[in-house]
């Protein structure tokens, strides 16, 4: 199976390495022609304003929206924001892919001073993950919560979509990516 990682900006190489360590073949995605070759997609961490800006400039939004409609997609941090139906703290004109029936709030844990590492239970497995200027999930509609921190949702699943406000890819946690790869087959 060929998995895409959106490579407009951010830590897409860390996702690529993690997916490869779990046996997947990975293609970095910057163009619609590349997106059409993959069965599933990861939207990595990075700056959501930059990703949104580039996706808009290069006309990727229609293809991305069509993709997440029916194909497995995982978003972490900025990727979670990109997959959110509602976003608080967006800049004027910032577009999103959408698909997850949640409200996320950009940088809601605070600036870098408040970034942290924590142990999070993801679908029954405890892993060390990093929250870097992370978004908060303020409201969950139809999505199912699969991880919480101090009682708050930090990862969700809805049909073919997975989203997390943290980064398992920089601490090396594999649970979220394993769930994602399982959902492909």
């Amino acid at each position, binding site marked *: 199976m060929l998995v895409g990682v959106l490579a407009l900006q951010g830590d897409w190489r860390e996702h690529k390495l993690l997916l490869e360590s779990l046996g997947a073949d990975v293609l970095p995605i910057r163009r619609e022609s590349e997106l059409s070759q993959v069965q599933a997609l990861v939207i990595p961490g990075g700056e959501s304003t930059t990703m949104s*800006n580039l996706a808009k400039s290069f006309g990727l939004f229609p293809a991305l929206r069509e993709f997440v409609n029916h194909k497995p997609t995982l978003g972490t941090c900025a990727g979670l924001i990109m997959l959110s139906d509602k976003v608080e703290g967006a800049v004027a004109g910032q577009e999103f892919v959408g698909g997850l029936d949640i409200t996320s709030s950009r940088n809601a844990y605070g*600036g870098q001073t408040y970034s942290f590492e924590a*142990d999070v239970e993801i679908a029954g497995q405890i892993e060390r993950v990093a929250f870097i200027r992370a978004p908060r999930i303020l409201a969950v509609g139809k999505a199912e919560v699969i991880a919480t921190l101090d009682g708050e949702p930090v990862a969700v699943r809805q049909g073919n979509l997975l989203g997390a406000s943290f980064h398992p890819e920089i601490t090396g946690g594999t649970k979220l990516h394993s769930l994602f790869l399982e959902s492909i087959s």
Partner: protein
Amino acid sequence: MSENSNATPLVKSGLAEMLKGGVIMDVVTAEQAKIAEDAGAVAVMALERVPADIRAQGGVARMSDPDLIDQIIKTVSIPVMAKARIGHFVEAQVLESLEVDYIDESEVLSPADYVNHIDKWGFKTPFVCGATNLGEALRRITEGASMIRSKGEAGTGDVSEATKHIRTILSEVRALAAKTDDELYVAAKELQAPYQLVKKVARDGKLPVVLFVAGGVATPADAAMMMQLGADGVFVGSGIFKSGNPAARAAAIVKATTFYDDPKVIAEVSRGLGEAMVGINVNDLPAPHRLSERGW
């Protein structure tokens, strides 16, 4: 559940990981910061004067007014960095208290200590530092830097020094990777860096932190060249707001940084940008005016 931990090395270098493939832009007002954010910058560097003006006006260059930094933090949603003078740990303490996202201990400002750099381990806020070669980069990492940028020659619009520094650092990493364990003791001595860190770089074949390029990037093609040479991202200082059309140039440099290996995209975004900053040839600069020679 175990304790949540702030400011671990991983959390500090983690933000730099998220900036990869992006452009960090120098800004001197909140309006410029907004233009940078709208153009797709991954972060802004708040400072009082861009390097080209520091160079033109001379005098001692220091940390920015906290009011300016506060305004910029309030105006944009992307990370805000700010510069402290080399060795000026109190400026760094002030920047930390303002909750900037990254502190740049920068040779662009006038050094406050010609012997010691800041002990960066004591800070919760991560630091980025400049380097012209691998030994300098490793000494900064030893002092606690979470991100390195090659220095180039700030405020010139001449990319040649940036090219030299990124080539030097990466070629030294490749040379290190080819060495046997016993040869690394001498390599550590020559690099004036700790053996364990030198060994880690040799075995991983890369720096343990993110490496951006800075100093002289003025066009989309400059940015793309730095990415092709192996940079993780670029800083653009005077190149944007000293040009004819900052918003268009900023957006073009962002696009060229993402599509750095696609000359068609670089050609497309380079059309009709208006005048680039006038610039100064580095060779015309007398040695005492070369900022990259500050820091050791």
